[in-house]
Every structure is written in structure tokens, then in C-alpha cells.
């Protein structure tokens, strides 16, 4: 697999798995309004994943659904950060916030890439992420003085750093005002991913080869 396809799968897997995790709040978010907004954002992330999988699929001679659902859990390239099953809102918002800030650093780099197709897609994704950032920053601003939120940010920080290439990390640290620490690097998966994968692919595995 080319370095480009690997990179695309990293990005797509991050978006898919985070979109999946965030969609677990549908119906149980703290308020009705936030429930609708959070679910919508989760759907957007999965939409970004689809677009990224399609780019990878064109190169690999497959399709987006096969990439999203037909790989074994250990073939996914997402960061452990997006796999974590976070059971409270403070951690969930802390992850959204750190993810959006890290994603911005990543998208800025992709927009400047020589790969016109990828740069174009990154710009398109970024136009939607603008509103995700607005949402995340609004929440972070509101919860900034809550110790539960601050603890959650500190706890997730090494994971957030692992989303990015080492060279991109100082920029993220500047954005969120945190000192760099040892990152929880991409490459090994949490036990939670296998659990998520089982649920996520269950229907598709139940009818191999079916079209939907």
C-alpha cells in the first residue's frame, strides 16, 4: 500500500471511529438541542470519512464501504484517541475539543499539500469543520473552569498528540495552551476498538456480499 493510501486511511479511520463514538450520544446528550447538534456533527465526521475512503478506494481498487467495514480491527489505522469509550460528557467534550484543534493543524497541512485531490478535499472538509470548531470551542470556553473538564483534557492530551505527526505537535500545544508530553502514538489499538468494530460491522457481516 502506498504511503498516500496509508495516510488517507489514517485520516478516514479517525473520522469514522470518532463519528461512531460521538453518535453513541444520540438520544442521551445533556439537552435536546445538544443532542441534535452533536448527532449532526457525528454524521458530518462520518461523511468526511466516506470522502476520504473514496480517495483511498480509487487508488486501492475497492470501495468506501469495503474499506470502512470489511477490514479486520488490527488493519484500522486510527489513533487510540478516537477509540476510547468515554462515559461522561466532560471527557466527550474534551475529546471533541482536542480533536478539532488537532484536526485543524492536520487540515492546514493537507490544504498546502502538492496532492491537488487531497488538498481540495481537505479544504472542503475544513469548511464544515469550521462549525465543529465553533461548537467545540464554545463548550470548552464554558467548561474551562470546571475541574472535571480540565482533568479530562489533561487525561486525553497524550492521546490527542498521537493523532498528529511529531512535527505538527508544537502547533497543537500552542493552540490549546498545553505543554508537550509523551504522546500515545498511533499504531496500537485499545481493546475498545474490537468491541466497537463488532457492533459497527455486525449487520454487514451478517449478509456478506449484500448490496444496500
Amino acid at each position, binding site marked *: 500500500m502506498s504511503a498516500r493510501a496509508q495516510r488517507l486511511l489514517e485520516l478516514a479511520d479517525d473520522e469514522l471511529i470518532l463519528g461512531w463514538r460521538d453518535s453513541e450520544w444520540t438520544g442521551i446528550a445533556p*439537552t*435536546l*438541542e*445538544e443532542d*441534535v*447538534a452533536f448527532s*449532526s*456533527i457525528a454524521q458530518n465526521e462520518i461523511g468526511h470519512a466516506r470522502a476520504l475512503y473514496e480517495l483511498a478506494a480509487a487508488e486501492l481498487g475497492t470501495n468506501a464501504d469495503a474499506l470502512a467495514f470489511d477490514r479486520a480491527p488490527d488493519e484500522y489505522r486510527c489513533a487510540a484517541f478516537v477509540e476510547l469509550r468515554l462515559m461522561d460528557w466532560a471527557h466527550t467534550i474534551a475529546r471533541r475539543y482536542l480533536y478539532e484543534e488537532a484536526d485543524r493543524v492536520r487540515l492546514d497541512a493537507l490544504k498546502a499539500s502538492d496532492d491537488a485531490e487531497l488538498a481540495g478535499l481537505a479544504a472542503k472538509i475544513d469548511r464544515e469543520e469550521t*462549525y465543529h470548531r*465553533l*461548537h467545540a470551542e*464554545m463548550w470548552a470556553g*464554558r467548561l474551562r473552569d470546571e475541574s472535571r473538564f480540565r482533568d479530562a483534557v489533561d487525561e486525553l492530551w497524550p492521546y490527542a498528540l498521537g493523532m498528529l505527526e511529531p512535527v505538527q505537535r508544537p502547533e497543537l500545544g500552542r493552540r490549546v495552551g498545553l505543554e508537550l508530553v509523551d504522546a500515545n502514538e498511533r499504531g496500537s489499538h485499545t481493546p475498545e476498538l474490537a468491541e466497537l468494530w463488532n457492533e459497527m460491522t455486525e449487520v454487514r457481516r451478517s449478509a456478506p456480499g449484500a448490496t444496500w
Partner: protein
Amino acid sequence: MIFEVFRQEKKGQPFTHAGSVVAPDAAFADAWAREQYGRRGESEALWLVPRGAVHQVTEWADEFDLKYRRVDGYSIKERLRIARERAGTTPT
């Protein structure tokens, strides 16, 4: 806070009341309204108005039966017929 949300479907069209959002402040209201009333591409623009800023008028006095001013109480059909006869024109 409750914000009333008005939605414009296309440029140039009037804003119509779409519903409301309950939010702690205007920034949250904007973000939530965006997702609730705009995520399907159904809106060109939204107006958000704190409910307290809305003036409501509900009292109507009509003591002297000025029904010619009302939209439902005054038929001009007969008068039109007479006017047309006088003018020598008939409806097509």
C-alpha cells in the same frame, strides 16, 4: 434562555417562524440552531431572537362592527357586479 428562530428558505423570501431553541447564551443558541434548522440545507439564513425581546399583541377591540375592514366579513361580489354593469364591462 429561549430563542425564537426564524428561517429564510431562499434569498429574498421573508423569514418565517421555524421554532425555538433553549440555550444558555447566544453563542450556544447560534450553534444549536445551525444544526437544528439548517443541517439539511433547508435554510438560507436564520434569525435568532431572545424570547424576551419579542413583543406580543393579543388584545383586539372592535366594538362598532366595522366589518368592512375585516378580511372575512365583507363581500364585494355584488358591488362588483353593479359597478361592471355601470361601466359596461363584463367579466371574462
